[in-house]
């Protein structure tokens, strides 16, 4: 059955939309705000044990001996596992690139500080932590490599000896005649940039409760898991289990942002459960574990990049060389963060050719994980600094320089050199609205006046693309296999017309359950409260990936509307039979099935549903008698990438322009943001309230990475930022109040024209803030090349300029 999913809001079968596209308060919030939501640490199962993990204090050392006898004899201790159990019961983590995984507990050697070496299950977490102190580990320290350039040298110690190198991947992707573009260019601008390690910090760290039946080998994992199905497949591979032996139930979680890795802790808790005769074992990652050894770190990058510009100020080529320090293993999928920039390599610009010289390196730091945006934010930081450098070089206003290079609205769909296709956009309109709202001309006047007084004031105008609705083919260049990321939903209507939607993803904070209710309520003309959303585990749910890669809003809209369409078709057939006409004559509108051209000849949705459920004898014989349907939505037209990594990967391309005003204190190097304006275009806004929330949170994280956050290691790869006193997340006091305005250019390719918008502003914010910082520094003749622009760094730059 071919299902036609509405492409525009007007295509919904309602004459008065009440929910979709409107500011709708999240239905999730009442339970969250009153503490009624069940998070993983709230789960208590009979005979449940608590896990604590002993972690390496060394960044690189042989594990000579692990003695657990004393710990095992302590009261309350039920099971202890070490690297030997991991060798016996599990495989190394699957990674991309392939072969850079290790076991969940270090067996022969530890490769980073915080790597697990043993773990205890006891009747309380207190006893488990007491027991850790009674485990003795003999380490034989090895030479440490904490720097990716040192790691690439022949003489460097090897993080994973079997690989014979620390270089996980070295490839140059060339899209078009790059050398010629640079040779022919009127101007070439080249700079070095450094993006220090940052990462996700959800309110809730990771947690899991694992039960592994030692007889049946059935494995049940409950946890704060971002993608339950993906996680389940991973556990099956790790333990060599048939995939239908693993059931994963994700719990509502307190944010993810890519930080909900948790695989090692989960696998350890699974093994402890098996050793404890199948008793449930809870592992709750504490904040220090998270910061030192969790899914907390991403994007540790060294860039050299160039752009070629012609005499008219048009950018004719982009050349980016990246060395990305992924830490000790590939288990966190940090590599795909380096691949994702291919989905928007040239940003919102018509840059015709580009090159990406990509080197991924292993060191003795924590394996890199995903973080919101998944890699493009540092890339856009680099691209936007180069755009400003070029604009200054040609003496063109930075806003005008961008306008000159924007992809014009009439050229969509537009294929960029790295292969992805942008669906739609109105970039100039977005720029104009942002400049208007910011009062750009006036800001520039104020800046000139401030400079007269010797103040260091800057204005940043930056634009970036948010690739939305990911596909695996985007990461083919680093060895991810496959295409297609499905999302399913089952919609059922009961005899009273109440509607239940079954999905496979947990509540994570983006308001998707509200969105599901909005869609179904408008589709069938009911109140939102008549729609209930139920989450199923992986052995019951329809195919689902869940949130990630700015996909779920679009994907679940496709799934839900597809299921609604299927129900409509069934109900039209049933109504036609009952009304003694053809299904083509039946129409659904405002919750009623009516016979076209026969006013009054109608049945309500509950009437049709009730008939279907009670009187299957009256139904057409070829119609499934349940007022229920499942639809699985997958982005259309995805295909494997070519040799140079080119593919239609991300289905949508949202765009934004941010205008930022900053003042730098010349005495201290502190940056104050006095103006923050956002204009974005993410297509149809299904729930503008949620979009705005995502934008504000994402600006906050962008400000964090631009000015505050940084995971610091010393030369022995010892982490120096192990608490929130050292790793500085901006609070409400540091995040600027922002003014927002939107442009809506619907996507021609997606359900209702919506684009991915969950990752959002972090694509643009670090670039925009740094453009403003560097604009401020222009009179001093210095450039801030390093993120975060911490006061210590800016003070040094300012002092150097003045000496």
């Amino acid at each position: 059955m071919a299902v036609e999913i509405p492409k525009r809001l007007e295509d919904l079968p309602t004459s008065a939309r009440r929910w979709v596209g409107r500011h709708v308060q999240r239905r999730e919030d009442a339970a969250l705000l009153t503490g009624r939501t069940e998070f993983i640490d709230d789960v208590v199962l009979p005979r449940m044990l608590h896990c604590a993990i002993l972690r390496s204090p060394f960044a690189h050392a042989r594990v000579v001996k692990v003695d657990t006898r004393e710990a095992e004899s302590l009261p309350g201790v039920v099971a202890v596992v070490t690297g030997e159990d991991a060798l016996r019961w599990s495989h190394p983590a699957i990674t991309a690139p392939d072969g850079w995984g290790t076991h969940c507990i270090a067996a022969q050697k530890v490769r980073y500080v915080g790597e697990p070496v043993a773990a205890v299950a006891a009747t309380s977490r207190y006893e488990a932590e007491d027991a850790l102190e009674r485990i003795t580990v003999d380490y034989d320290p090895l030479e440490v490599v904490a720097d990716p350039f040192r790691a690439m040298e022949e003489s460097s110690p090897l993080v994973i000896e079997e690989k014979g190198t620390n270089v996980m991947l070295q490839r140059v992707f060339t899209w078009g005649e790059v050398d010629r573009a640079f040779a022919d260019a009127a101007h070439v601008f080249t700079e070095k940039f450094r993006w220090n390690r940052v990462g996700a910090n959800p309110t809730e760290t990771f947690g899991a409760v694992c039960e592994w039946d030692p007889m049946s080998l059935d494995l049940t994992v409950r946890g704060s898991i971002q993608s339950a199905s993906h996680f389940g497949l991973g556990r099956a591979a790790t333990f060599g289990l048939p995939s239908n032996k693993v059931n994963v139930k994700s719990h509502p979680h307190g944010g993810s942002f890519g930080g909900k890795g948790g695989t090692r802790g989960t696998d350890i808790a699974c093994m402890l459960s098996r050793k404890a005769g199948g008793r449930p074992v809870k592992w709750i990652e504490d904040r220090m574990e998270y910061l030192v050894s969790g899914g907390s770190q991403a994007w540790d990058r060294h860039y050299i990049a160039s752009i070629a510009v012609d005499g008219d100020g048009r950018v004719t080529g982009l050349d980016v060389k990246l060395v990305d320090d992924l830490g000790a293993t590939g288990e966190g999928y940090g590599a795909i963060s380096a691949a994702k920039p291919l989905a928007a390599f040239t940003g919102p610009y018509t840059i015709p050719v580009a090159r990406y010289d990509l080197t991924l390196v292993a060191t003795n730091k924590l394996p890199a994980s995903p973080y919101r945006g998944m890699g493009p934010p540092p890339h856009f930081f680099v691209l936007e600094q180069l755009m400003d450098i070029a604009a200054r070089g040609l003496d063109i206003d930075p806003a005008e320089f961008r306008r000159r290079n924007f992809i014009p609205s009439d050229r969509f769909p537009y294929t960029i050199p790295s292969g992805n296709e942008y669906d739609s956009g109105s970039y100039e309109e977005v720029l104009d609205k942002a400049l208007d709202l910011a009062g750009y001309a006036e800001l520039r006047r104020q800046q000139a006046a401030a400079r007269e007084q010797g103040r260091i004031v800057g204005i940043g105008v930056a634009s970036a693309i948010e690739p939305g609705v990911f596909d695996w083919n985007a990461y083919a260049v680093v060895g991810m296999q496959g295409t297609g990321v499905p999302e399913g939903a089952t919609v059922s209507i009961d005899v009273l017309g109440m509607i239940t939607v079954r999905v496979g993803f947990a509540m994570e904070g983006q308001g998707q359950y509200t969105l599901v209710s909005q869609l179904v309520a408008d589709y069938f003309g009911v109140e939102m409260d008549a729609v209930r959303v139920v989450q199923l585990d992986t052995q019951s749910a329809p195919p689902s990936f869940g949130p990630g890669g700015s996909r779920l809003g679009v994907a679940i809209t496709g799934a839900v509307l597809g299921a609604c369409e299927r129900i409509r078709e069934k109900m039209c057939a049933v109504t036609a039979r009952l009304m003694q006409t053809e299904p083509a004559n039946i129409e659904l509108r405002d919750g009623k099935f009516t016979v076209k051209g026969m006013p009054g000849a109608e049945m309500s949705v509950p009437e049709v549903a009730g008939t279907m459920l009670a009187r299957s004898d009256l139904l057409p014989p070829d119609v499934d008698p349940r007022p229920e349907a499942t639809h699985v939505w997958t982005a259309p037209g995805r295909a494997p990438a070519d040799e140079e990594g080119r593919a239609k990967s991300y289905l949508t391309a949202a765009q934004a322009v941010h205008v930022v005003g900053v003042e730098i204190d010349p005495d201290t190097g502190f940056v104050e943001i006095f103006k923050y304006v956002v204009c974005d275009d993410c297509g149809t806004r299904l729930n503008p309230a949620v979009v705005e929330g995502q934008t504000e949170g994402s600006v906050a994280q962008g400000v964090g990475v631009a000015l505050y956050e940084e995971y610091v290691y010393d030369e022995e790869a010892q982490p120096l930022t192990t608490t929130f006193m050292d790793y500085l997340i901006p609070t409400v006091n540091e995040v600027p109040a922002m003014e927002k305005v939107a442009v809506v250019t619907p996507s021609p390719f997606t359900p209702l024209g919506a684009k991915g918008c969950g990752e959002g502003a972090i694509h643009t914010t670090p670039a925009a803030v740094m453009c403003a910082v560097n604009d401020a520094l222009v009179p001093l003749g210095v450039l801030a090349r390093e993120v975060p622009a911490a006061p210590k760094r800016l003070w040094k730059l300012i002092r150097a300029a003045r000496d």
Partner: protein
Amino acid sequence: MKPAPFEYVAPTTVEEAVSSLSGCDGEAKLLAGGQSLMPLLNMRLARPDLVVDLGRVAALDYIRESDGRLAIGAMTSKRSVERSGLVASRQPLLHAATVLVAHPQIRNRGTVGGSMAQADPAAEYPAMAVALDAELRVVGPDGERSINAEDFFVTYLTTALQPAEVLTEIRVPVLAPGSGWAFTEVARRHGDFAMAGAAVTVTLDAGGHCADAKIVLFGVGPVPVRPRGAEQAVNGERPGEDLYRQAGRKASEEIDEPLSDVHASAEYRRHLAGVMVRRGLAEAVARAAAARGDA
């Protein structure tokens, strides 16, 4: 993140607390607001045998004025100090220092005595106490004694308190007429421990020259630091930006090697200390001038 086992008592009087401390064979720790001790316990960086919780010693929660001084009970929360009209009007420097301490949630739990006894060199309260020449009242097995703030802070996280002594009260003089003050700091984020800060008090003599300048730096040494050379350089001089700058430079030269960490090198901290002195003096002089009525 779970503490190692310890004994716990919750006395209701200072005498009981002192006797619990003196009766402990091993290490005993006093628990006040818990804003420093609880993380240390949870990280197992502190492993006391006994924790004596002062939370039920109700008699230590008060703010009073007598004989030209404010007397504040050691278990008074910072939030109470922050909201006290008496404090705001009689000793505004104390109020200013208080609102710079962390965040409201922490000020709700954290106590005046706890901050003093913790003696974190980057914290606001020890510097405030030294700047105001506070007197700290202490009760031990041998009775009560009082310690001058400058003698109380010995080195990093170390005070003159004896193992069985309980800090019960801090007394600070009310703001003297004609006195100008400032409490200024630079921290990465609002509410963080300062990278450097300065508490400044100063008056202006009849001729408009600076007098009685007192400068206390924090975040730059093991205890609150008084750059006496900078103080002397100010006294007797006509106020002005050049003078503040010169005092700042002098102060930053005077301090010993400051701490170096991920947020600030020793060199940057030293520089910031000078900036804080300069800004603090400007602010304090402006207030002194206003107090004289010639602003």
